């Protein structure tokens, strides 16, 4: 305490606005969420997309079951002989029905509707596959089988994720700027309410940094308290969110869970908030004191 604050001269307790740590907590909560979103979007979408990049789906829409089976066999034979193809798998009818269920209802199979045949294709990792060639071979040997490599969809996904990431970091920056502004206002209010004490210290020969000392210590405590509060709220929210994602059955949704970097960033948040409030308060006090002779 004595080491951090050279001379104590401000009243303790109620004269200080007890609101500042709360506002900082809310700010740090938003900051933490945006930060985690930015960091985990990066990881989750990259992982997810690389999985999808290695996959393609062959679809055979043929109402006649015999014809459909023939095309299926031809397509399988063609794909298996192609370089770069690691695995092919015909989706069983009930899996296809499951996939369609959300759109067509649970009893598609019973309804006797023609169900498309789907073949999952997995490419070997780390190989560029010429989709044009695959497409041409299929057209020649198994007409009626269409391959979809998700390229268009993936492209949009990338654009979306890039946008969301940019947005997340913009939110982080804006929240930090707003936090600094709050600290400036809070410190100015503190300086104004303690104008007399500040002036007396000044006239007794206190250096500016001595006077700034107690203000910046208080700001540091506010930042630490607010930062801790925000981080705890953040962790609770993320835990609830990850439970929710698991409940949905998360094959499709990117893991929103905390990766190492995101967790580190969250745990560092209180310290970072404290540093930000300290520096901001010091700067504010020093600038105000400059107006004295």
């Amino acid at each position, binding site marked *: 305490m*004595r080491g951090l604050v*050279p*001379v104590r*001269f401000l*009243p*303790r307790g109620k*004269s200080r606005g007890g609101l500042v740590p709360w506002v900082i907590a809310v700010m740090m909560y938003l900051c933490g969420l945006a930060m985690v979103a930015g960091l985990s979007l990066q990881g989750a979408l990259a992982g997810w997309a690389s999985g999808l990049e290695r996959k393609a789906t062959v679809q055979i829409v043929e109402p006649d079951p015999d014809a459909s089976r023939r095309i299926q066999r031809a397509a399988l034979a063609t794909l298996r002989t192609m370089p770069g193809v690691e695995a092919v798998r015909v989706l069983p009818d009930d899996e296809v029905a499951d996939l369609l269920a959300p759109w067509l209802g649970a009893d598609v199979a019973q309804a006797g509707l023609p169900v498309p045949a789907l073949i999952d294709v997995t490419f070997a990792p780390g190989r560029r596959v010429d989709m044009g060639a695959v497409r041409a071979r299929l057209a020649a040997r198994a007409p009626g089988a269409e391959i979809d490599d998700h390229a268009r969809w993936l492209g949009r996904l990338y654009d979306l994720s890039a946008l969301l990431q940019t947005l997340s970091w913009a939110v982080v920056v804006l929240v930090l700027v707003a936090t600094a502004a709050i600290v400036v206002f809070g410190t100015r209010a503190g300086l104004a309410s303690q104008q*007399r*004490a500040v*002036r*007396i*210290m*000044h*006239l*007794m*020969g*206190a*250096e*500016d940094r*001595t006077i700034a000392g107690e203000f910046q210590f208080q700001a540091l405590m506010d930042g630490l308290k607010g930062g801790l509060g925000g981080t705890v709220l953040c962790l609770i929210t993320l835990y609830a969110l990850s439970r929710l994602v698991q409940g949905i059955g998360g094959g499709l949704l990117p893991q929103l869970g905390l990766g190492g970097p995101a967790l580190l960033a969250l745990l560092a948040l209180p310290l970072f908030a404290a540093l930000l409030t300290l520096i901001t308060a010091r700067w504010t006090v020093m600038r105000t004191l*400059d107006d004295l*002779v």
Partner: protein
Amino acid sequence: MIRFENVGKRYGMGAEVLSDISFTLEPGSLHVLTGPSGAGKSTLLRLLYLDQRPTRGSVQMFGHDVTRLARRQLPAFRRRIGVVFQDFQLLDHMSALDNVALPLRIAGDLPEERIQGFVRELLSWVGLGDRLNAKPPTLSGGEQQRVAIARAVIGKPDLLLADEPTGNVDPSMAQRLTRLFVELNRLGTTTVIATHDLTLAESIGGARMQLAHGQLLAVGGGGGAPRVAGAPVPPQPADFGGF
């Protein structure tokens, strides 16, 4: 030694409140600054305790022209000056002890136990040994004044300034406080006391500096620059002289 040369001071765009002020204060001298209300006594003291810079002229203090010093060099000079403000300017949320300890804590070159020891000693010396932990609002005017004086002298300043130091107390208390200042001056501190109370000025003795309409008319002290009131007397109260 302190020397004002052709010092002028105006506030903002107003007329000069002080004009062509020149004087010299010898080390250890005692001065009484008198003049009617509005003559500029407080303004002159503000220049002395470096709260304001003059608008012209030079102020030599402790071997430097303080009008030419950078802002960041002034605190070290202020720490050599003790000021008793007309309205005391004590911090109401701090005990008498903490108020008096402030200058030593600001100077920061004594450990806290020694600071406490000195402060207790000095507060006892001014008769407040039993009010160490009282907050200023619970003290009488005279008691507050003694706390203010104790705070001004605790750091053994080279220059002691007092602005109407007896403005708020009855005549007998005024006499006691006056004796306190004279006593402190005898310990070697250059002292300037501003008052418009001529009776008080008489009883203090010392060299008279008389202000009228922003001009300094030196009286007493044998013309010219005000001089030391009496030969410095060796420190008397052993307990106070001890630090």
